[in-house]
């Protein structure tokens, strides 16, 4: 057994990397939502509307809520987290509904 050299493990850098990756996953989520929305517009496919809304709710809205409510309006964190979680659940439900409901064609 040997101890992990904690000093060489820069926690601040780790936090920064984590924040950056969080921002990246929001951007990727919104990109997928946009592609799904284009699919809805181009093919008139209603399921794609739910998939688009779902991705936006799972990955985009919680981040926006956190920034808007916690950082700007200083709403208590547990409340913000609960709202974000509700958005994620709603979003996953929307994606599942989009996959389940039959398409137009």
């Amino acid at each position, binding site marked *: 057994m040997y101890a992990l050299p904690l000093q060489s493990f820069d926690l601040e850098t780790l936090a920064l990397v984590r924040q950056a990756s969080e921002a990246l996953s929001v951007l990727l989520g919104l990109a997928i939502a946009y*592609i*799904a929305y*284009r*699919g*809805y*517009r*181009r*093919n*008139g*496919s209603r*399921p*794609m509307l739910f*998939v688009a809304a779902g991705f936006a709710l799972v990955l985009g809205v919680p981040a926006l809520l956190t920034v808007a409510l916690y950082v700007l309006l200083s709403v208590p964190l547990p409340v913000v987290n609960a709202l974000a979680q509700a958005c994620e659940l709603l979003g996953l439900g929307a994606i599942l509904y*989009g*996959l389940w409901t*039959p*398409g137009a*064609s």
Partner: protein
Amino acid sequence: MSGEPDAGEVADLLADDCARQILVETKAAARSAAELSDRTGVSEPTVYRRLERLREHDLVSEELRPVPDGRNYRVYRAELDGIEFDLDTDGFSVAVARSERMADRFTRFVEEM
């Protein structure tokens, strides 16, 4: 897609100036029939007739543009990268090269689940 396109019909369609111009004008961006009429200097009814024929061969796609508090209108987009005519002992056949867009692939993926 409506199966193998007929080589004669596609050649006939491409021989038409207006149809070719429509394809060129809708290659980079989706355009409405009114815009196409402006750009090609051809009357709107003629543009609509050409669009109808192009759509029959899936060379052009139609998309609804929703307008808040207004009448929705349709825009058209070229759906091909190239057309190849091949000659063999059975005659000519046509192959249309298309770039399936990411949004279409995603739609197919979702709808086939």
